[in-house]
């Protein structure tokens, strides 16, 4: 390959404006794809991680009635080769009476109530990590804002959270999702402050009301209990943080009457006090058992093991004549991986990402078309140069290479710039989003109007000097700037990423590098393809004609 190829490519690139426009256009396309797909990938990734964070790998569930003898089941499961730990859970919906506002008429909210055993629950999920009010160590404190309440915590709240009990009074403790209380306000750095210091939740109590449902499916007398708010949790999944509260397993079982209870013989005659004779005990129940897989064991493998374990557990209990209360038959119990449980959420997102990828492959075509158009005009303009090159001995192949290499460089430089731009946007996407969410500062629209006025004056001056292009360009600039100014002036903070819609409190800000690399390669390849047609045309130019071309 001739050295003149690289020499000319270099010169064509550095002495003209059009290739820069092409580079910019390719960069914008690549940045767009990179940002959109990265956000979607991050979103999926968050969903995936949240599954494990929230519910471990595999869930055994039998809602409402619950599974009796769940301790035996858990012991069985924990002996499985693939299981790391298992924990019982009672989940239901209930009413939570909040401590605010002042006066007798308090706020009451509905919430998803999870009654848990904090120790084992923390072994199966990442519960511990989601507890928010922990004392900060020195390094963390450095990164925190000066008014972050976590800087001054003693560790009492954290200790209470892990025990789910107020260490001073012995009262049962509840943990609230961070967004359950309307008092908590998210800051730009992602931390939280109570709107009013007095309403910092861990110094208050809530009343939880649960409604037990009888074996016949009827609602019976509701039960209420007061809990000390010992801490708050922040899982990052908005739906959870908005709706969920945690109470100790035993309290949940008692409130729902799923605790151990005597079984009476309803056919017998009541005794003198009106009590029926006790003929046994009904064991406590859990509506779910969450299981965590050992490292290297996939959720699916674990699910199959757990399914078998449940069948064996049931078979054993059913065969045991001394057992009066049988666990539900395996057919009625669902054993699912977290992915299956979240499928309703994950599947559409996955499809959407796939669709985005397909839709955005169109940007490759845009790149190719753009380069084709630009190169077509460059080749027309360079016809004579092609003749000159042929006259000094360059072959058709060399001419072809010049324009192909030109396209390659534009595609590659544009792709790299685009990936860099995308990376910058993604890294700062939450800040950008926050800035969009606030009203535009006054200086921004005043500056835009001033610039518009300046451009207008220039347009007038150009008009007086009867320079047509300058008049036109300055008028357009004035209009655009005035438009931007008006837009900024009217701009009301608008947040596109509504956490209530997108599950997570923050926009994923992880760069999807695989996708970025694929996009860069695609854009480069298509740039070269776009350059190929004009390059072939250039190679076909008859040098004699080209030299006559004046």
């Amino acid at each position, binding site marked *: 390959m001739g050295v*003149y190829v690289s020499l*000319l490519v270099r010169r064509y690139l550095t002495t003209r404006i059009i290739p820069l426009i092409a580079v910019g256009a390719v960069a914008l396309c690549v940045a767009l794809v990179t940002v959109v797909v990265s956000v979607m990938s991050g979103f999926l990734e968050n969903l995936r991680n949240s599954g494990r964070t929230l519910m471990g790998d595999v869930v055994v569930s039998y809602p409402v009635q619950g599974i009796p003898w769940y301790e035996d089941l858990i012991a069985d499961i924990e002996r499985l080769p693939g299981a790391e730990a298992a924990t019982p859970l009672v989940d239901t919906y209930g009413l939570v009476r909040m401590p605010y506002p002042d006066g007798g008429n308090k706020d009451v909210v509905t919430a998803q109530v999870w009654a848990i055993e904090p120790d084992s629950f923390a072994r199966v999920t990442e519960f511990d990590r989601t507890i928010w009010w922990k004392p900060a160590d020195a390094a963390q404190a450095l990164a925190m804002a000066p008014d972050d309440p976590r800087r001054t915590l003693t560790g009492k709240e954290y200790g209470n959270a892990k025990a789910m009990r107020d260490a001073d009074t012995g009262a049962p403790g509840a943990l609230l999702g961070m967004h359950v209380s309307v008092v908590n306000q998210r800051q730009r750095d992602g931390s939280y402050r109570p709107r009013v210091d007095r309403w910092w939740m861990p110094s208050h109590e809530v009343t939880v009301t649960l409604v037990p449902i009888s074996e016949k499916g009827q609602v019976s007398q509701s039960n209420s209990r007061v809990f000390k708010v010992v801490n708050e949790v922040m899982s990052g999944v908005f739906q959870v943080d908005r709706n969920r509260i945690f109470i100790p397993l035993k309290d949940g079982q008692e409130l729902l009457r799923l605790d151990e209870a005597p079984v009476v013989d309803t056919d017998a005659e009541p005794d003198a006090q009106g009590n029926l004779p006790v003929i046994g005990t009904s064991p406590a129940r859990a509506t779910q058992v969450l299981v965590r897989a050992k490292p290297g064991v996939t959720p699916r493998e674990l699910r199959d093991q757990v399914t078998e374990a449940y069948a064996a557990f049931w078979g054993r209990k059913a065969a045991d004549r001394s057992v009066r209360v049988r666990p539900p038959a395996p057919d009625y119990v669902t054993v699912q991986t977290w992915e299956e449980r979240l499928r309703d959420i994950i599947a559409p997102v996955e499809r959407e990402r796939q669709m985005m990828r397909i839709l955005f492959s169109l940007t490759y075509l845009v790149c190719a078309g753009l380069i084709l158009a630009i190169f077509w005009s460059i080749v027309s303009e360079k016809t004579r140069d092609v003749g000159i090159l042929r006259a000094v001995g*360059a072959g058709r192949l060399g001419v072809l290479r010049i324009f192909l290499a030109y396209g390659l460089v534009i595609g590659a430089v544009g792709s790299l710039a685009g990936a860099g731009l995308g990376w910058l946007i993604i890294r700062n996407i939450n800040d950008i989003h926050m800035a969009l969410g606030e009203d535009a500062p006054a200086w921004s629209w005043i500056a835009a109007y001033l610039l518009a006025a300046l451009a207008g004056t220039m347009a007038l001056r150009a008009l007086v000097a009867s320079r047509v292009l300058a008049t036109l360009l300055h008028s357009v600039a004035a209009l655009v700037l005035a438009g931007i100014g008006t837009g900024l002036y009217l701009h009301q903070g608008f947040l596109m990423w509504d956490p209530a819609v997108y599950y997570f409190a923050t926009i994923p800000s992880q760069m999807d590098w695989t996708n970025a690399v694929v996009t860069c390669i695609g854009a480069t390849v298509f740039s070269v393809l776009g350059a190929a047609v004009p390059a072939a045309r250039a190679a076909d130019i008859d040098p004699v004609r080209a030299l006559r071309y004046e």
Partner: protein
Amino acid sequence: MTSSGHQPHAPAAPVAGGPILEARDVHRTYRLGRVEVPVLKGASIAVHPGEWVSILGSSGSGKSTLLHILGGLDRADRGHVAFRGEEIVGYSPRRLDRYRNDHVGFVFQFYHLLPELTVLENAMLPATVGVGMIEWSRRRHEVRERARALLDRLGLSHRFRHRPAELSGGERQRVAIARALMRNPEVLLADEPTGNLDARSGESLLEVIAEQHRAGLAVVMVTHDQWVAARADRTVHLADGRVA
């Protein structure tokens, strides 16, 4: 003059006393839509080593066409073109490219420099053709030196970094000559090199060509100026598609 030493497989068998470049009975017809325009109808010309031949002829008589055919830029429809006695009509496109690069140098009426390259780069251009990166890294110094020396001799030493657009017509044409001489060709093919220059620049350019001719370069120069043609050893007339 240092020999360029290319053409390893070409049997370098110049017929003693024979022409270095020769066209015999060359025909060339252009087609404009359905109209056929016969331009050359059996033109013949022989150029001997170190000889300066002028081709005179009226506008449209086919002078440029003949020159392009001699330089391997255009192909004859019929007839023979031989360089050092070897037929170039049958050359593959690649060999023809090499031939233009190695053995002939073109100079055109309208300079035809590449506007994006500097004067020095324009002069070096033929030496960058067909040279790979590795070879280039070894030879770039030598090539640059040769281009500098050529431009120096043509009085352009202070213009190396300029773009063609910043030069006068006479200066541009000298850059074109430097480019034509870069690969040390045997024949210079000049198509009205003074056609676009004023009398003084034209005269000084002819002096430059004359100097190369004295050093042994064969020159074929197209012109329709009798006084310019008179500088040559020999003048031929092209009329009615034939050389008289």
